[in-house]
């Protein structure tokens, strides 16, 4: 059991103790949070800093395809891209992982086995999470059995919004156990939690339950990762480590499409959680089209010319 689970035994003893704890977290002022995120967004990252940030961002991408139309061929192409993002420059970092549905894990693994690119799989009846617990656990075990290194689970937002925090907690615990050695990312679907106070509570709930990563969104709803909700989650992992010594990663997902956006998120990481999180073990981008924009910007830095879409690969 992770250290955190025992440290918070009192908190998770009952529905009411858990509720008291989560509702006792400091409130979040939305305008102040968004203003801070926007202010960090005005950092000007140029030249060497930009080169560093671009490579770091590439290395942090969970290159994702989560479509009903996914096929082994599509997944193999994506995995190939993860291994070799820019055929014109072999020095380009690989992405952190490829993220697929459980039934596509094997196809991804076939390409990536033996590399340092991980296979992440969504699970637990992604994206809605509306299934019985044993179905969610079976989903998880399937993915792990197929070779997933990481599991991206969704929380039961319905239970969370209904105030059944202990149910959410226990489900995360169960999935964590089913994940075995795979690292567990817990998706809150922040767009559905709607308030920043809820996002802070969900963050602590997830971390107490043993999440290795807390993740904003599925990418399947209207509002996905934003600078503000990611900043808030970065504050949570920072404070959680200060309190427990346990470091938890953060993964914004959905809606991050440009280098400019990605660099802003890295500034958030740098100035909120700190440089300990500036590593793909602790920070990820859930994204797909972002990679090509990073690659074009990377080519621009190398050559001085603006690149074009024909000079990066379509996957």
């Amino acid at each position, binding site marked *: 059991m992770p250290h955190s689970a025992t440290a918070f035994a009192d908190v998770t003893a009952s529905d009411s103790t858990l509720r008291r704890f989560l509702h006792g977290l400091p409130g979040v002022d*939305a*305008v102040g949070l968004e203003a801070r995120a926007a202010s960090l967004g005005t950092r000007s990252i140029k030249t060497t800093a930009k080169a560093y940030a671009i490579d770091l961002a590439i290395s942090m991408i969970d290159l994702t395809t989560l479509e009903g139309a996914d096929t082994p061929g599509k997944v193999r192409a994506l995995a190939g891209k993860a291994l070799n993002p820019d055929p014109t420059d072999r020095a380009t970092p690989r992405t952190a992982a490829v993220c697929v549905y459980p039934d596509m894990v094997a196809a991804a693994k076939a390409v990536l086995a033996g590399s340092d690119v991980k296979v992440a799989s969504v699970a637990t009846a992604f994206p809605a999470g509306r299934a019985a617990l044993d179905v969610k656990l079976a989903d998880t075990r399937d993915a792990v059995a197929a070779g997933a290194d990481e599991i991206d689970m969704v929380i039961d937002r319905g239970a969370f919004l209904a105030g059944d925090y202990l149910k959410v907690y226990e489900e995360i615990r169960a999935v964590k156990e089913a994940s075995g050695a795979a690292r567990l990312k817990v998706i809150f679907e922040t767009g559905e*939690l709607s*308030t*920043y106070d809820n996002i802070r509570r969900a963050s602590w709930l997830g971390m107490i339950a043993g999440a290795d990563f807390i993740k904003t969104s599925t990418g399947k709803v209207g*509002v996905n990762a934003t600078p503000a909700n990611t900043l808030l989650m970065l504050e949570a992992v920072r404070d959680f480590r200060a309190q427990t010594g346990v470091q938890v990663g953060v993964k914004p997902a959905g809606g991050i499409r440009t280098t400019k956006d990605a660099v802003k998120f890295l500034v958030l990481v740098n100035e909120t959680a700190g440089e300990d999180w500036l590593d793909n073990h602790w920070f990820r981008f859930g994204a797909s089209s972002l990679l090509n924009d990073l690659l074009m910007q990377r080519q621009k830095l190398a050559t001085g010319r603006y690149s074009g879409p024909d000079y990066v690969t379509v996957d």
Partner: protein
Amino acid sequence: MSESSRLSVLKTYKLYVGGKFPRSESGRVYEVADAKGTWLANVPLSSRKDARDAVVAARKAFGGWSGATAYNRGQVLYRVAEMLEGRKGQFAREVARAEGLSKSEAALVVEAAVDRWVWYAGWTDKIAQVVGGANPVAGPYFNLSTPEPTGVVAVLAPQESSFLGLVSVIAPVIATGNTAVVVASERAPLPALSLGEVLATSDLPGGVVNVLSGKAAELGAPLAAHQDVNAIDLTGADAALARELEIAAADNLKRVLRPAEAPDFAADPGLARLTAFLETKTVWHPTGSLGASGSAY
């Protein structure tokens, strides 16, 4: 029985400070005569220490009075008008003697003074809506400006208009929640000292209005320099004294209402005397943003 056969009972005029009627701590009095020079009364010749005590009383009353609801203050001011209405005869006699007016002229002045209380009674719960309000700032903030009383106001009451002028300078000060230390007309202080008796029976908390009689110059100096006085109305000061007091008032940056050249207390008072002793407080608070922008508040 003829009126003249009965020896009338004279009133000992006293100060009104902290809701009580003290004599001057100095023990001094001076003679007050009517417009023709006939002796009317010996009144307290207040000292610096009386001024000091009056400021203490006014400061003590400030929290309660400024914290009272505007509706409550309006009720109290209206009560003053009611009390005064019943004592019109007395005040008409005092004003007639003080200002050398005929009985009917004096009666009109007193009625105007009663009406002035009614005017300001109605203002207590409206001034905030007229001079305050929401400010449409360019951002996600609720922003509201409200007028607040400045604190303790020293008032040099007009020298000539001993009653209508007096009421016209006191009522706007206290309508908005300030408390007042009033220096009555030096030559004609009797209506002011009698007003104290009316205020004492009008539900006005003690200390909200304090009335001193004496010399404007002698009392004005310590009041203008007093560090716990927030504002000064120089209406009753002549040009030289007004300048001297304005200079002294700068020591703690009192709000200063300079004397007007020829004040017409019968005219529509407007808002100037109300706003002269108001501060504007502006409070900001984030509103948060709703809905489609994706912001979660």
